[in-house]
């Protein structure tokens, strides 16, 4: 069964660099990975079963708890899917759309900051952690000022937004966006040309664009292979078609390129936020909800809708029987779950320490993998 040099080692489930409770069963030849088998499900909470048993508006807080470092984008994907099912996508007021975009882009920044902090600390760079959390704290403060929560935001409603922006929020946001670019420069000065960082990431976990599509990989890992595909551009939702931004892509599809893509994405998110501030000021205050029935009872039918979450394509598939206020079936297509599936492909032939870099670079959140 095993060659004399081969051994089987459990990586996780309790391991600081598995970002939660991921267990990887490794088959090793010395330190080289022959085979890796991710074992998941330790954080399974039956979210999809719960969704089927509660009215649509009650599902929104549960979506927060899937990708718990990017609650706003989870909310956005869910409410948009229900809106599509009800056929009210076109009725969402402009102000609500811009607010949704602002919260999602802030969420993208905070998610990428958490990724960078933990990815760097996993590989051994301590300092970026403190720098990233400094800015992430400011993003969370902005969330807290808007909706009272820092992580589980519950900040969107079917048909619009729960509240208007509090006074002074836009000034705080403007101040944040003004200095965030310099903060990204600071992170990059620590890592981008760092010799150790490059030796740990360049050429590690290479995946080709064809293989990435075959495995269903989306988000920064897909763009790292050089494929310019972002749902915000390919199938624009909310007001993304009015906004100017670039889709950063990599070249080699390795860990270093995925790092560069995410760094550039933070800059682009910041750029979107800066465009949003004058746009939202131009819309009438308080116009944040479409006029829809308070009882959400969508017609019979099935829809799939997806958005670009910080991790990749986050999709919701709803089957409605048109009779009740509950979804008959509500499926979540989590980007982390699908991206994680390609871990063995990326890890084969690398060293155990590279597995730590790979888990970081896929940017998984186990709450979303297991649901």
């Amino acid at each position, binding site marked *: 069964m095993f060659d004399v040099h081969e051994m089987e080692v459990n990586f996780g489930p309790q391991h600081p660099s598995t970002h939660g409770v991921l267990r990887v069963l490794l088959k090793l030849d010395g330190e080289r990975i022959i085979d890796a088998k991710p074992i*998941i*499900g330790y954080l*399974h909470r*039956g979210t*999809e*079963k*719960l969704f*089927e*048993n*509660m009215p649509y508006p009650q599902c929104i807080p549960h979506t927060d708890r899937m990708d718990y470092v990017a609650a706003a984008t989870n909310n956005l994907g869910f409410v948009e899917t229900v*809106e*599509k*099912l009800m*056929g009210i*996508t*076109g009725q969402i007021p402009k102000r609500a759309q811009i607010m949704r975009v602002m919260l999602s882009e802030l969420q993208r920044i905070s998610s990428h900051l958490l990724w960078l902090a933990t990815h760097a600390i996993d590989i051994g760079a301590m300092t970026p952690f403190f720098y990233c959390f400094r800015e992430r704290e400011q993003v969370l403060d902005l969330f807290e000022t808007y909706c009272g929560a820092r992580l589980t935001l519950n900040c969107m409603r079917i048909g619009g937004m729960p509240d208007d922006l509090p006074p002074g929020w836009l000034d705080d946001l403007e101040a944040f966006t003004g200095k965030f670019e310099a903060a990204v420069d600071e992170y990059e000065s620590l890592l981008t040309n760092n010799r150790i960082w490059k030796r740990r990431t360049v050429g590690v976990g290479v995946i080709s664009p064809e293989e990435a*599509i*075959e*495995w*269903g990989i989306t988000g920064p890992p897909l763009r790292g292979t050089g*494929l310019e*595909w972002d749902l915000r551009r*390919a*199938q624009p939702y909310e007001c993304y078609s009015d906004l100017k931004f670039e889709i950063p892509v990599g070249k080699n599809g390795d860990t270093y390129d995925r790092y560069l893509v995410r760094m550039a994405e933070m800059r682009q998110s910041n750029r979107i936020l800066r465009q949003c501030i004058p746009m939202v000021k131009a819309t009438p205050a308080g116009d944040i909800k479409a006029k829809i029935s308070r009882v959400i009872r969508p017609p019979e*039918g*099935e*829809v*799939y809708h*997806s958005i670009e979450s910080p991790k990749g*394509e986050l*999709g919701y*598939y709803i*089957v409605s*029987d048109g*009779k*009740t*206020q*509950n979804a*008959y*079936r509500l*499926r979540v*297509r989590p980007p982390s*779950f*699908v991206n994680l*599936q390609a871990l063995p492909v990326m890890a084969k032939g690398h060293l155990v320490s590279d597995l730590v870099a790979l888990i970081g670079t896929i940017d998984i959140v186990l709450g979303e993998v*297991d*649901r």
Partner: protein
Amino acid sequence: MAETATASPARTADEIKRDPLVAAAVARSGEAITGAKEFAGEITLNVAADRIREVAAAFKEDGFSYLVDLTGVDYSKYPGWTGARYGVAYMLYSFRKNARIRLKVFSDGVVPSVTSVWKTANWHERETFDMMGIRFDGHPNLERILMWEGFNGHPLRKDFPVRGIDTGARIYPEVFPEGGGPKAGSTGKDVKDVNMYKGEWKHYGTWPAASISARAKAGTQQPPAPELASQVAETAKPTEEAPWHDPEMPMPQRLDLAKTGSLKDKLFAAMAQTDCTACGWDCEGYAAALATGESKDPTLCVPGEAETEMKLKELLAAAGT
């Protein structure tokens, strides 16, 4: 995308099949495409279950290179459903056309695997097997992925109780040891399928409405379970003593029928009449509990919503309790 759907009138199945987006692949699949539907601008093609693999390959060749998602739906509780029990939906995306379509097969439990067409289908099919119990023929490694090996049951089936089965220990003491977890050495193969269990649920899940009054008399009232609120029990039919016991009847008419009755009858008529047992009783039991003062909470009727709640408060206030 959604705007175009509401604006244009519904197309027939043949018109959808001729849509340039899918026409080429549909032509190659021929008879395997059994139907087509359009909703909210999304095209769904029904595929004969035994031919899904070749149809999937045809669509992949036609540009739908990215399998976005694969999941199952248990239609056993779908209103008016007569077809096969399970549906499996395949969400496809074409980078070239920048468009999505959905393939759908219906089956009673076995579907050919498409892992040979898209590698990403591997985990999706494992999850669908784990959650729904649909078997995928030709899957290289069809084992549980979210639940543990040896877990009995498939949680997303409609007859699986939403409260869970507590590792099965209470229901299947012969298979699962007290304290949880599978039996030592269990491979999962020796475990009975929970959905095949014909006996009475001992602790969990839905109680048959008929036994609820008996349960209430014995002092073993079940705790409130709001997740039951959407069901309508078979006992929800008008009787001679309670002609208002009809979920379809509007409330003023029901109250009119009960106006000469006792307080309990009036309260009974104000309920939603579905006998859903979400409050912990059937409709009559809850009315009796309110009338005798056993329950002081008039807000428990979930399907009746605000209408029932306000009427109950009004009746109780009028009775001076």
